[in-house]
């Protein structure tokens, strides 16, 4: 699954650690999602969408 996490994070000038703290997860989790090594669960995807004030579909897309 592709995602725009890195772009959205850069637009806000957030580090991976900043985003991790906002999501309540580890920096490794943010890195794994960003590099598409790990697809988040639905609850975490909703949380990511909430943090960026966007819909899940705006952030995640099929390969």
């Amino acid at each position, binding site marked *: 699954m592709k995602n725009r996490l890195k772009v959205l994070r850069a637009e806000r000038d957030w580090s991976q650690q900043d985003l991790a703290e906002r999501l*309540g*997860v*580890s*920096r*490794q*989790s943010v*890195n*794994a*999602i960003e590099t598409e*090594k*790990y697809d*988040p*669960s639905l609850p*975490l995807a909703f949380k990511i969408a909430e943090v960026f004030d966007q819909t899940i579909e705006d952030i995640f897309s099929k390969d």
Partner: protein
Amino acid sequence: MVAAPTAKQRYLRVHIGLSVLYVALVALASYVVPDDAAPTPGVVFWSILPGLIVIGWIWNMGRYLFAMEDEYLRMLETRKALVATALTLAVSGGWGLLELFATVPRLPVFFVFPIWCLGLAVGSLVNLATAGTSGQDCA
């Protein structure tokens, strides 16, 4: 105000406590049970008493896994346990067959849990190689 311990801290505290108790019970059993003793109920009791700590270790690991809030790190921990289980089954099963057909030293069943723990270390290396992180909770 003192911060509440994290899941990792709770896990480590219980693990260290159980380990100390394990060493004490093994020492006590060694003292109480004479060499080459017949398997009387008392001997069996003292012999399996330290084994209850092994159950405690496993319970503590399971509790830690459930307490982890970070789903990605939990996935890595679960993968470590799966690697450890696969390795333990392979080593014990393979060595068992070797014992059956060849004259090799017997592998005491006692070693199965330590082998599984070594498997966790191998699981960490697998995580490091495939995910770029060993899966240690850095939060």
